[in-house]
């Protein structure tokens, strides 16, 4: 039984995969539904507003969401979300590479 098996999905990780990158103090996280059938569920659960709301101390700026409908993907741009960025952050992960798993760790709520 894999995490994205037949059980009711509990986490975003159960239906999607993701990768994070950084430019300056801006992070982007792209998130892709494994199955096209789950894309609407992903879109409903991962809104820009929710991501901003979930991490208020980390994401100081706004959140933009780009929808890549035909590839079942979402691209989130998290502004002022890298604790100053790789130049200034004292976080061990100063690039915020692990932010992909911040999003994958969110719960599926409807």
């Amino acid at each position, binding site marked *: 039984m894999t995490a994205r098996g037949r059980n009711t999905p509990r986490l975003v990780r159960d239906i999607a995969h993701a990768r994070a990158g950084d430019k300056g103090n801006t992070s982007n996280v*792209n998130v892709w539904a494994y199955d096209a059938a789950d894309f609407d569920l992903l879109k409903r659960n991962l809104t820009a507003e929710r991501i901003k709301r979930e991490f208020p101390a980390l994401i100081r700026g706004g959140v933009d969401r780009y929808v890549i409908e035909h590839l079942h993907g979402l691209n989130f741009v998290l502004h002022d979300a890298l604790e100053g960025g790789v130049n200034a952050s004292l976080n061990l992960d100063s690039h915020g590479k692990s932010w992909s798993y911040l999003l994958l760790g969110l719960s599926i709520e409807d």
Partner: protein
Amino acid sequence: MSKGPDVFRIGTGAGFAADRLDPAVDLARHGKLDVMVLECLGERTVAFAHRDRMADPRRGYNAHLERRMRALLPVCHEAGTTIISNMGAANPRAAAERTRDIARDLGLKGLKIACIEGDDVSASVPLTQRFMDEPGTLADIGRPIVGMNAYLGADAIQPALAAKADVIIGGRLADPSMYLAPLMHHYGWRADDLARAGAGTLVGHLMECGMQITGGYFADPGIKDVPGLAQCGYPIAEVAADGTAVITKLADAGGCVTPATVREQLLYEVHDPAAYLTPDVTADFSRVTIENAGKDRVRVAGAGGRARPAQLKVTVGFDAGFIAEAGVSYAGPAAAARGRLAGEIAGERLKNTHGIGSETRIDLIGASSLFATAGRGQTESEDVRLHGALRTTRRDEAELMLWEVESLLCCGPAGGGGFRGSITPVVMTKSVLIDRALVHPTVELFVA
């Protein structure tokens, strides 16, 4: 120079400064490549290279250049594969001369090495220059500038290709431009063919991080398994005249190429998928199609392009002092409580006993560290590590930080062990824009 009847074959042999060498040799030997690109430069890498060059004018290029060239030159020479690389970093001339000497050592007489310069624009950018994407000017930073490099595009690489160079070495060559340039040269794509520029830029963008498209940086055991990661292969792009491409790898190399590995890389470090800016084009990845085309073969098409940005981006590196990092570990019952107490003691002594006001951060690895600010991931493991970090422009403060954390071995909570500490020089980078008319790329040939 094409090795296939209908396609031009480009391989990646490094996707960052410290990338693996042995799979690059495998790919050069068996990949039937027209071109191998070694992408070895990030924003901070180039700034560190400037510091190396200041310390020794013969240095300032990629630390692995010698080993890479010794291994790859003979194989690429035999296969008729052109090498294109930004391993020159802050000193392309020294890198080209070193490569020429290595070629002579290896008996590759007549090998032509092209050196691209002109990306160092430190003489052309005034301190009053405003930042590209934030308020302020270069002068506001108040720290010594260690280097300024403009991103050079495919047009800077074309003369080296026209001169039939075997090896092309530059400094801040834009990553995707190293792929687009040989495609333009081979297929005769014109500089104003924006659709082809977008397509070639897509190929470069997908390929430039090496194994990040062949299964590297992808595995999540149980749900996203990747076979043979220890022997993961670098990617190959088979590019057709219309700019569409198949991304693949050597059949017997580890890793995998699937629509999922390609999707994750498609928007890696991309903000608006419809506007990916390079020196060559404003590329549009928003309508790219990704299709399975056989085992470890994925076809990509549909990239678009609009006019290139009017100005070039310049990365400016500043000497930003040091980061001091130090840690002690705690295990067993109440390990996290003892680790937290250790952090409180170290923080209090740095601030109150030594009066250090520099920015500090105390994490407890195994309880809360990477996601501490995000407010996630807190656990109460019985195996934790105090990790203190301090940023300072003063070496003596950095050393004091290590001393204080080490002193916890005798003066801190019970059962602490395993002190390690390090002091790392830091460069800060900022971006500005420069008029293209102020940037003058040059190409010089060195013959072995």
